């Protein structure tokens, strides 16, 4: 009996997972088709860029600055043992451009804007606003989904750039004013060791992360059922799934972009 129940549960969970993956694939294909076959709504795109980007700027700047500051102060302890304090600048900059900048910005924006995208679309879904748009012959993907996905994909690299700059600045402040290191050396070493591909690679990663959280966010919101509880569940799942996918894809993107 226990064995039958166990097998049943595995079967049910497999079917559920396959169904969800199938639905997600259909949603993605429909979004891709809409993107390439319909006119882009620029007004909606710019509105979403402002909503997602400008409104997330504060938290991204704050996160980036303190990440750079912590990185500088923690690395100093180790680097001091080898007499390599002069390399604090490059290590802070490399970490921020390649990893911390894109990942932290993506996770923060997922928490702030990804959840907002899901909650908004989920509320529209359960209050029949999406059905109403369909009955008015409005392409709901063109109207609701594409502007959000495109805006996130465009705006996250820009936010990441802010996170990188603020992080490096945060590291500089710690190095010069707390650790009493040479500020000029901090900047010169960064200029010597940081390549353009480090920054571009980080920005490409950010664009992919923006695409991931917005695709998951719009999908979870668009397909929400079941009232207020459904909105809450979808929002939570959207943030959790997006964050996991960002962290997993980060590994593969690091290999793909930087080839190490």
């Amino acid at each position, binding site marked *: 009996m226990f064995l039958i129940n166990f097998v049943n549960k595995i079967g049910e969970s497999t079917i559920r997972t396959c169904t969800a993956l199938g639905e997600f694939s259909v949603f993605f294909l429909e979004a891709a088709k809409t993107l390439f076959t319909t006119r882009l709504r620029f007004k909606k795109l710019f509105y979403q860029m402002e909503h997602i980007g400008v409104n997330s700027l504060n938290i991204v700047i704050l996160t980036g600055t303190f990440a750079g500051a912590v990185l500088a102060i923690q690395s100093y302890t180790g680097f001091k043992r080898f007499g390599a304090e002069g390399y604090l600048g490059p290590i802070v900059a490399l970490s921020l451009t390649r990893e911390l900048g894109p990942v932290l910005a993506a996770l923060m924006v997922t928490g702030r804007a990804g959840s907002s995208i899901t909650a908004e679309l989920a*509320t*529209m879904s359960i*209050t*029949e*606003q999406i*059905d*109403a*748009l*369909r*009955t*008015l*012959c*409005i392409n709901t993907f063109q*109207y609701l989904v594409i502007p959000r996905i495109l805006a996130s994909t465009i705006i996250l690299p820009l936010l990441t750039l802010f996170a990188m700059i603020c992080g490096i600045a945060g590291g500089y402040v710690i190095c010069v004013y707390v650790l009493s290191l040479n500020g000029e050396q901090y900047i010169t070493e960064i200029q010597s060791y940081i390549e353009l591909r480090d920054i571009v690679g980080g920005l490409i990663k950010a664009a992919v992360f923006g695409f991931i959280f917005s695709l998951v966010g719009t999908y979870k919101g668009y397909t929400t059922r079941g009232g207020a509880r459904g909105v809450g569940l979808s929002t939570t799942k959207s943030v959790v799934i997006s964050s996991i996918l960002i962290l997993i894809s980060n590994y593969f993107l690091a290999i793909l972009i930087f080839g190490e």
Partner: protein
Amino acid sequence: MIELINLKKQFDDKVVTKDVTLKINSNKMTVIIGRSGEGKSVLLKQIIGLIPPTSGKILVDGVDTTHLTRQERLENFHKFGYVFQFAALLDSLTVFENIGISLFEKNVEHEKIYKQVKEKLSLVDLPEDVMKKYPSELSGGMRKRVGLARTLIRDPQVLLYDEPTTGLDPITTKIIHKLMKSLQDKFKVTSVVISHDLEVFNYADYIALLYDGEIKYFGDAKTVHKSDNPYIQQFISASTTGPIQTEIPHTSEDK
């Protein structure tokens, strides 16, 4: 004419409509009544094509609309206007933007949209100054009328009303019913109304009763009170005894 033939809708294990067969006459108002949770709204959404039926056919002017392509479904939507139970107005848009949304999407000139919105607002007896308001600033009755105006802007041939008077006071209910009737007479549209409200019988042409996933009664609205059909009799008299099963146990007073 709209014909529903052996329509069945099932969600997972739950059968909502078993076998619905119904003819909805053109240019007439047909009211579908039934208990809560009987699948009336699901039936209405199947008619417009928002929900696909599990089996059966829906014929709109002789054309089967159950297996349409995406483009054909979009064209099919053009024939219909759907008034949602809670109006389903877009919260982030003003009344003007809500009513004119389908025209904005077609890139119609602002002046023309304004003129049309103004005209539709007067049709549903709303003053021009509500245009700038947001849905959250409107009363329930006003929201329903804005929802109706939004539907009318597309000049539909068929109007589907999903419980248009739910949550409204008796006076507003009567106003909405009169409005539905006047639009029916003025534009000669086909109206299908889902309702619990027996007051709507005064304005309807036909009544259909949905129970246990089937149409148990269909007849002229004028003669419905004289019908000996036990289902419609029990529904009209609001009796707990009869063929319609109730969720609440019978009391001696009911008998």
